[in-house]
């Protein structure tokens, strides 16, 4: 599996096994639980005095800074979660069996769905303070990156070369030392790549999460997201332009000062000796050559050293039996019984909650209606993926076949992909209102606006990876026209294309929650679909309906993954994988 893919597909099997089914039930139960808790909160809630947001451009740097701080808190939390959960899943076969399918399902839940359903809970945790909404926004960014990172780390942990692992055992490293000397470094390139890519996607969600309407109350956290929301309320095109410029600067800094240096630095952890030209950063080179910073680096090394080798966590005289030896001994009967009891209790609660919601709270006709709305959104996603493919596949191939152009375009495409497309929504609405366009149709391009780039840069990556000799052979045989596309170009980029399309489709489902319903001053444009259903019910505070909407969207995504993307992905790997 390509480490640099954005969207992880861990299980290769086409049919869900019993653990997947269990995971679906548990996740649905969890969503219902949140909704149930949310519906029991006192409404309307009290936030105390909300800070006033101004459209004064001089306030923008401070807003941007606050947004960035939220992003980094979420990133730090994601790392902690990843280290703990993925390690647990990799070390205990029993835990891994349920954790991995669970995460697989959790990443199919729409990100803004998490936000809709948890925001009241967070507000209740910190009554009368803006800390609640802030936590909710951070949580939304957290869930947009953590599943990817956990799966990536888990995958690395399970693919550590056997001899490296044996070496750490022969040389008596303690589990703690092994974690920092072998496991984390080995996973670093994949983990950082995933974290950085997810963080790119995170800008979209933080912008959406900073200004949210819950239960007929508008909450605005100081940040770029609420600045733009206010600008929309005031129909202020100039302020929107300021916000876009501020965001561009933030993302440019993020890209050059954070993302590129880290990726370049992480290339030292790669196992292969192949140089990777994409992994270069002027800033990192500068830092590494600065004398003072070298001393700083040494000091950090000393500190890291004393943490890794802390006597507390060093191997004791009598070493505990090793992994291999333990693998032969089955876990004790008692712990088995306890484990399965725990699972059964969780399952029971989930089923009880699902029952309660589907049959008590809502008429069954609602469920059918919501499934139908999901179909509308699904059709939009499908049509747009096809249209974008028709446009971007040839462009991507053209670019990818020209290494010099690709080198310039590729970072640009990644940069554009990380720009939160929802900043452009107001401009689009302005145009639609002016020209009286049908929003049912024209909301679709908005859904794909931010994620189409994944198709482009995956195809570019694929086309630039075509072996030179195959290119020469194709030229030598004078392949041209349709034959060249059918036998040479399309098959060689197909696995990359599928990865890109999966990511784009996943992103489009997520975006539907903000793209199918848009405000412009007093105008509200609504398109029939699952996204607008979730948003409308969030605004009105119908928790049962939010839960239903989120669950149905999650199930649609899972079913489409199962029926379309997984088979395609598997076929691509088998037939066209190099």
């Amino acid at each position: 599996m390509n480490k640099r893919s954005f969207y992880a597909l861990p299980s290769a099997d086409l049919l869900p096994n019993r653990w997947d089914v269990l995971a679906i039930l548990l996740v649905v139960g969890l969503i219902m639980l949140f909704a149930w808790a949310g519906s029991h909160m006192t409404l309307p809630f009290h936030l105390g005095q909300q800070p006033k947001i101004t459209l004064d451009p001089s306030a923008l740097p401070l807003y941007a800074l606050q947004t960035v701080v939220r992003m980094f808190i979420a990133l730090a939390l994601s790392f902690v979660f990843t280290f703990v959960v993925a390690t647990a899943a990799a070390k205990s076969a029993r835990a891994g069996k349920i954790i991995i399918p669970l995460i697989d399902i959790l990443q199919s839940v729409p990100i803004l769905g998490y936000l809709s359903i948890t925001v009241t809970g967070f507000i209740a945790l910190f009554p009368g303070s803006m800390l609640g909404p802030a936590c909710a926004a951070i949580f939304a960014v957290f869930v947009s990156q953590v599943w990817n990172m956990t799966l990536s780390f888990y995958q690395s942990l399970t693919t550590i070369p056997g001899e490296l692992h044996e070496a750490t055992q022969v040389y008596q490293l303690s589990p703690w030392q092994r974690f920092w000397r072998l496991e984390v470094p080995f996973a670093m390139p994949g983990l950082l790549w995933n974290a950085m890519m997810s963080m790119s996607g995170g800008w979209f969600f933080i912008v959406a999460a900073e200004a949210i309407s819950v239960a007929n109350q508008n909450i605005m956290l100081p940040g770029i997201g609420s600045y733009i929301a206010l600008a929309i309320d005031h129909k202020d095109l100039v302020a929107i332009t300021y916000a876009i410029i501020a965001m561009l600067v933030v993302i440019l800094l993020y890209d050059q000062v954070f993302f590129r240096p880290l990726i370049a630095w992480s290339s030292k952890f790669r196992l292969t000796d192949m140089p990777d030209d994409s992994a270069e950063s002027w800033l990192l080179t500068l830092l590494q050559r600065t004398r003072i910073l070298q001393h700083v680096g040494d000091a950090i090394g000393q500190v890291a050293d004393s943490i890794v080798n802390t006597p507390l966590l060093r191997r004791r005289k009598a070493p505990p039996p090793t992994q291999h030896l333990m693998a032969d001994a089955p876990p004790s009967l008692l712990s088995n019984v306890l484990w399965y009891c725990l699972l059964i209790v969780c399952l029971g609660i989930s089923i009880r909650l699902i029952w309660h919601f589907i049959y008590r709270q809502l008429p069954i006709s609602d469920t059918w209606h919501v499934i139908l709305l999901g179909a509308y959104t699904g059709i939009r996603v499908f049509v747009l993926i096809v249209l974008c493919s028709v446009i971007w596949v040839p462009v991507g191939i053209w670019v990818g076949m020209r290494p010099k152009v690709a080198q310039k375009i590729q970072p640009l495409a990644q940069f554009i992909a990380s720009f939160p497309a929802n900043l452009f929504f107001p401009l689009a609405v302005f145009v639609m209102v002016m020209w009286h366009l049908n929003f049912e149709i024209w909301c679709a391009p908005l859904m794909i606006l931010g994620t189409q780039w994944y198709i482009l840069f995956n195809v570019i990556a694929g086309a630039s990876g075509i072996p030179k000799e195959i290119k020469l052979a194709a030229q030598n045989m004078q392949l041209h026209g349709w034959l060249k596309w059918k036998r040479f170009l399309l098959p060689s980029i197909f696995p990359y294309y599928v990865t890109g399309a999966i990511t784009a489709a996943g992103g489009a489902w997520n975006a539907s929650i903000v793209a199918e319903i848009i405000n412009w001053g007093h105008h509200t444009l609504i398109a029939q679909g699952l996204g607008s259903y979730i948003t409308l019910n969030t605004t009105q505070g119908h928790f049962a309906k939010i839960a239903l909407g989120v669950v149905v969207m999650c199930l649609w995504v899972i079913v489409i993954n199962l029926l379309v993307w997984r088979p395609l992905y598997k076929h691509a790997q088998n037939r066209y994988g190099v």
Partner: protein
Amino acid sequence: MQALLDIQNISKSFKTQDGQGLKVIDNVNFTMQEGEIVALLGKSGSGKSTLLRIIAGLIAPSDGQVMYRNQKVNAPVPGISMVFQSFALMPWLTVLENVELGLEAQGIPRKIRREQALKAIDMIGMDGFENAYPKELSGGMRQRVGFARALVIKPDVLLMDEPFSALDVLTAENLRNDLMEIWQETEQDSMKGILFVTHNIEEAVLVADRILVFGSNPGFIRGELKVELPTERNTQDPAFQKLIDEVYRLMTSSEDQRRRSKKTETKAIGLDYRLPDVRVAELIGLLEQVDELQELGPVDLPDLAEEVRLDIDNLFPVLEACSILGLAKVDQGDITMTAKARALLEADITKKKELIAKQLIKHIPLAKYIVDTLHDRSAERASEERFHKVLEEYFTEDEAERVLTTMIDWGRYAELFAYDYDTGLLSLEDVA
């Protein structure tokens, strides 16, 4: 002298699908004395590397025990260090940091471990490269770091798993000589014995004081050979050549005797036979070579190995395939072609395929089983999973996959059946 290592009745089975267990090591016993260098010689898949890992405490044996200085080994022991085939260096650590790793684990303070590591790096001839990353180094240099890492913790016993097999001939020889020098210097104070695994006969005779020849399926010690040569050994020495001949004899002859004595019913092989990993072209290529050399009677295996430039890992599977298909007799270090093989060499391509098909059906139960199954089906088709399942009763999943892939390759060549990659179906259609 004290027994350094005592290997007692070691057996090892890996789990298969039906829980029966695939035996890879069968009742191995030997002891290693202080001051000895012992070689475990055998072809790949004979379980010798697994045995080495059991001795290192990395894998638990299914039966028996390993005693290290009268202490039972059930986890890695501080006195035993190991050198790996693929070097197993951490790519993100510099040479110095890699060598320090074992000292770090012992909790030696940063300053002292740095000193000791630098000394070890110096001893192995790598000074000047302390700050290099492994990816900057050539294979030979990397393995030097592997040695420095193993030696810096002052091991009592050094285990080596094919330490030179990833290196080219010249580099391997250079490193081997340096290691022998270090051995002679340190034998007195710290390192008391070396146990290494190899598939290179010459290497075993060059380095070891004693060679344990390993047989496969499942792995067992087929024979033992004392090397009573001076420390400075010369490959051209007649005594050296005699030992090499002796090793080949051991590797080819005693197996049949042992098999016969052990289980009398093993005249015919069954579905549980592990097809050697050999392509038909290799088989015919080898026979052609034997044919050229054969004018003076049976061909000596060392001569053949020299001629075809194959080490035993590559040579022995082909020999096994020849003999199982009734194309050659391999015994006492010699190979003789049968009349069938002669007919095969003289035939044209179509005829060759027919002959191979006939031998496959006659000698390989799996081939016959597949063809019979396909005949019984009304559509004359069956999925590969079906046969995979059958093989999984005898083998681990990976081994079943390998055996089936080899069988499909042979079957396609001989046009016994056809196979479609996309659908995974075996069928009799398209077979001329």
